[in-house]
């Protein structure tokens, strides 16, 4: 359900949307300070990841803790291919494919699990991958960090604007994707599953297949976002690629903004990015504070900001107004 502005008609909203997109797109060209571009770039990357987590947890009932796996795999794929001379753009796509295949593979063991078992099963995956990449040094090359760290060959050819636009694309794509999915048959099926697995199954919905779709779509978009992130970093290493920080980002953004709402991840990500930069100085404390906020929000406002908004009087009267037209 979207927070609609009652009086405006569809075409007006559409124009507004296009204007916003154009504005965002030209920002690098009109000389916006570097720092702002970095904010927006990071926002878009985090947004894509948060949206996908919302798709998985909020809409499909899959509490996935293995998002870092897709980020790391896509990133490594792209970088390893770059080492053998394959262009980065192709590498991104390859990364997405690898993430999708991996999602398909691990769905075999992991989808047999429910709820908490599923969550911990998915927790094991990035941890295991971290070890794999610490041990496996496939492309003899410059090592960085504590293990198989690699530099991205060819990253230097990317201008700030180019990376920015890539991020913008995936960020916006994730929003449209969510909008589209929720209106499709997939979305309907997911809503049924979320309410009650067994009832949905008995109404003929192929629960497994729908969850798998979500999982794979989530893997692809998350992977692409991760790959783009590593273009901006120009280097990757296992401990950061498969780090639980990524999981924290998507959970925090989705929970603060509000699970099961489309605007939720957008608002949540804004706050997370803000926190990220505001707390950048206090390196050690950043995650502590994020953890405290997560616990606090869950206890006080479990449906996030959007949930609180929806329950508030102004919103409800607005909705009533809208329904009368």
């Amino acid at each position, binding site marked *: 359900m979207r927070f609609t502005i009652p009086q405006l008609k569809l075409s007006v909203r559409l124009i507004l949307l296009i204007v916003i997109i154009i504005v965002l797109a030209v920002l690098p060209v009109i000389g916006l300070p570097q720092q702002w571009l970095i904010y927006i770039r990071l926002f878009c990357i985090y947004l894509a990841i948060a949206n996908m987590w919302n798709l998985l947890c909020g809409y499909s009932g899959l509490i996935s803790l293995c998002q870092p796996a897709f980020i790391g795999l896509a990133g490594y794929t792209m970088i390893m291919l770059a080492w053998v001379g394959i262009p980065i753009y192709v590498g991104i796509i390859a990364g997405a494919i690898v993430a999708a295949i991996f999602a398909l593979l691990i769905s075999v063991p992991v989808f047999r699990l429910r709820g908490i078992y599923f969550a911990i099963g998915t*927790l094991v995956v990035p941890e295991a991958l971290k070890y794999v990449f610490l041990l496996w040094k496939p492309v003899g090359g410059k090592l960085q960090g504590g293990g198989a760290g690699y530099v991205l060959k060819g990253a230097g050819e990317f201008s700030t604007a180019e990376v920015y636009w890539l991020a913008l694309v995936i960020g916006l794509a994730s929003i449209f994707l969510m909008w589209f999915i929720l209106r499709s048959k997939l979305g309907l099926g997911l809503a049924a599953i979320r309410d009650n697995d067994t009832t949905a199954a008995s109404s003929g919905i192929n629960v497994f297949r729908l969850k798998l779709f979500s999982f794979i779509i989530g893997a692809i978009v998350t992977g692409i976002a991760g790959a783009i992130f590593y273009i901006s970093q120009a280097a990757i290493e296992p401990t950061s690629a498969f780090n639980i920080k990524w999981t924290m980002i998507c959970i925090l953004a989705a929970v603060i903004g509000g699970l099961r709402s489309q605007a939720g991840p957008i608002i949540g990500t804004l706050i997370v990015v803000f926190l990220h930069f505001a707390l950048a100085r206090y390196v050690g404390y950043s995650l502590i504070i994020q953890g405290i906020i997560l616990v606090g929000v869950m206890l006080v406002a479990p449906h996030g900001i959007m949930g609180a908004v929806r329950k508030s009087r102004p919103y409800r009267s607005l909705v009533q107004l809208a329904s009368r037209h």
Partner: protein
Amino acid sequence: MTELLDLSTPLLMGILLGGLYVLIALGLSLVFGVMKLINVAHGDLVILGTYFTFSLMSGELLGHKYLVISNLGIDPILSLVIVMPLLFAIGYAIQKFLMSRAFGISMEAPLIIAFGISLIIQNTCQRLWTPLSRGLTPPYALESFSVGALRVPLIYLLDFIVALIVMLALREFLRRTYLGKAINAASQDKRAASLMGINNNRVYAFAFGIAMAIAAIAGVFLGLTFPFNPTSGVSFLIIAFGVIIVGGLGSMLGTFIGGMFLGLAQTFGGYFLGATAQMLVLYATVLVVLAVRPQGIFGR
């Protein structure tokens, strides 16, 4: 003849190591048995115990030595006198103020809150004691003894013995005391338990506290056995989870066998595939067990 001898090292070591893993898993198993909650912060809470002990032993906190009498650290096992009540209190508080509310909110809430706690603990430890790898190394932690032609680290044997002691103590506690019976009752039938005059909230909080006290013991012996750092918790959570999955829930014997199973998986994995692959073998084992038989071998 030498072939057999070669396998006996990983065999013995695996069994003894399994003891440590049982010890780590006991707390997780108790909480899950009573409240049907997998505490994803469990590993981190164990490591927190390890760090408290480390702090008492080395006198270090935030990079400074706070113990006035320098070099007179408290022996890790003795420090349990302080660390166990401390962790009990933390566990009691977590259940009473955080988890109990989480249950009423949604299905995902306890998991997400535990996740938040996990990160808070990891990063607090990182702040207080730096990300460096540490170890608890009183003299006896470095001793080894001989069994026939094998040399076994003393600490592995201690791990095993302590695990047995704690297991038996827990079992007797659950069987004989009113609180233990109440914990049992509440885990079998919550509603009937409250009709018996059992204050479920209080029982849950005690159960969590006791689980954390056991985690404190596990933490100390973990620190004596392995090096540790603030992010070690996740590995041990996965191991503990693997133990209770293999062994099934509600069965002490099952937990024991689960521990043995994983200990042996690790040592044999290391034997055949090299030391660096040990953790991978463990994780793969857990995934396989999860996929094949989520309810465990002795599952109820």
